[in-house]
């Protein structure tokens, strides 16, 4: 009668010569089984903490962005920060996608041919060459009513690529703020677009006239209308780049369809 005591089987397995086929296969299964158990239990046990860390990171980034916008933190505090949602939108259709904004990397997406498009020369006023097909935007609603939309814009300036966030109020025509995220322009001249004093000129400016054409621009010298922002002396090309960024990103290749959808109140609920 065969002995069914597992301990004896175990002892017999260990007593086998190392080079036997049975022992080789048994050792492979035992070691990989124990390792699999170890790895999966670590992954399951630590998953809640990792997710909490990722969520905290996302919030910290958003908070840093809001803080960089003069006056914007107040608006958000007024409506409650929870109401600010981030959506990754398709620039072609203007429709939202179900991609998790936390995992979407716009800089990486812009470099891969599958997830980006080449802008034809004459339309490429911002000098970007290639942009991602998707972009993350932030939307703030109050009682279902649109209050604020934050769009990422960019353009090639005098000696660097300038990245900024443009915040629009609920009518999608009044600027709530402009925040420069990244720039490497000439210190003391173009780099002054980072100064809060210059960014404070933006709230209240208007994007488009009655005919719907984008008119907002940075001008030389003093602004004379709601469509103009004071230029910085000695930084004409940086100012032009900001103008180009706004015209490009609110135009055909940018957020025009997204804004049209938002105006209709359809889609981006």
């Amino acid at each position, binding site marked *: 009668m065969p002995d069914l005591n597992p301990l004896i089987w175990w002892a017999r397995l*260990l007593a086998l010569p190392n080079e036997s086929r049975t022992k080789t296969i048994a050792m492979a299964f035992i070691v990989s089984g124990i390792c699999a158990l170890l790895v999966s239990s670590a992954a399951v046990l*630590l998953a809640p*903490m*990792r997710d909490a*860390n990722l969520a905290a990171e996302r919030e910290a980034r958003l908070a840093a962005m809001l803080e960089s916008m003069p006056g914007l933190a107040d608006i958000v505090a007024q409506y409650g920060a929870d109401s600010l949602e981030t959506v990754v939108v398709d620039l072609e259709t203007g429709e939202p996608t179900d991609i998790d904004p936390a995992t979407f990397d716009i800089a990486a997406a812009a470099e891969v041919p599958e997830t980006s498009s080449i802008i034809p020369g004459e339309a490429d006023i911002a000098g970007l060459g290639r942009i991602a097909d998707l972009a993350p935007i932030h939307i703030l609603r109050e009682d279902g009513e649109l209050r604020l939309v934050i769009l990422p814009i960019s353009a090639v300036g005098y000696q660097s690529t300038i990245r900024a966030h443009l915040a629009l109020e609920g009518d999608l025509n009044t600027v709530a703020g402009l925040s420069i995220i990244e720039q490497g322009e000439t210190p003391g001249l173009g780099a002054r677009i980072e100064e809060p004093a210059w960014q404070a000129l933006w709230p209240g400016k208007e994007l488009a006239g009655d005919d719907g054409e984008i008119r907002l621009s940075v001008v030389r010298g003093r602004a004379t209308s709601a469509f103009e922002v004071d230029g910085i002396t000695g930084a004409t090309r940086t100012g032009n780049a900001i103008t180009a960024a706004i015209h490009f990103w609110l135009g055909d290749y940018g957020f025009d369809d997204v804004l049209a959808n938002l105006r209709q109140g359809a889609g981006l609920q």
Partner: protein
Amino acid sequence: MKRLQHLYTPLIDNNPVTLQILGICSALAVTTSMTTALVMSLALIVVLVASSMIISAIRHHIPTSIRLILQITIIASLVIVADQVIQAFAFDISQRLSIFVGLIVTNCLVLGRAEAFAMRNPVGLSALDALGNGLGYGLVLLLIGFVRELFGAGTLFGQTVFPTIHDGGWFTPLNLMLLAPSAFFLLGLLIWAIRSVRPAQIEPVDYEISIEPNRRAP
């Protein structure tokens, strides 16, 4: 105490990085600051000690034909667990270490100790040897990290030591120190210094190019 020899010889006399030139890829990548160098060293020491002990414990039952696969499986599992723990408890450091914790698997140092020592020695000795080698690796990482962070950013563990000109101080940071080549230079200088003090570490010349004055090119 002959046993303790296994602990301290890898620190300088038989240092895995400066003598055996193992694991320098990560030594270059994570030494831009002391914090990342320290966390990387700790992760490597934990993985190295644990894997050496496990492999040493089952060494009589590892079939020779699949020994490397078993060693790598054990090391890789421990590395994944270490990576998960760092992501859970030190998230921002894990962001800065990016893939390098995961790449401990491919660090020749770990497999080298498993294959060369743990397969032939009892658990206690293997643990001492692994700890010694891990500390030797950590020592080099911290030394290079110290120089790179101090001269590249004027800080140590993120604390300002030399106030930089950006913050109104006097110190102009050496940006080269934050780039990978500087780690190569520092590592080279370190190896040079150690081998000058201990000429026994100098390797014999493998081959020499002799120039024969009368030889004509075909």
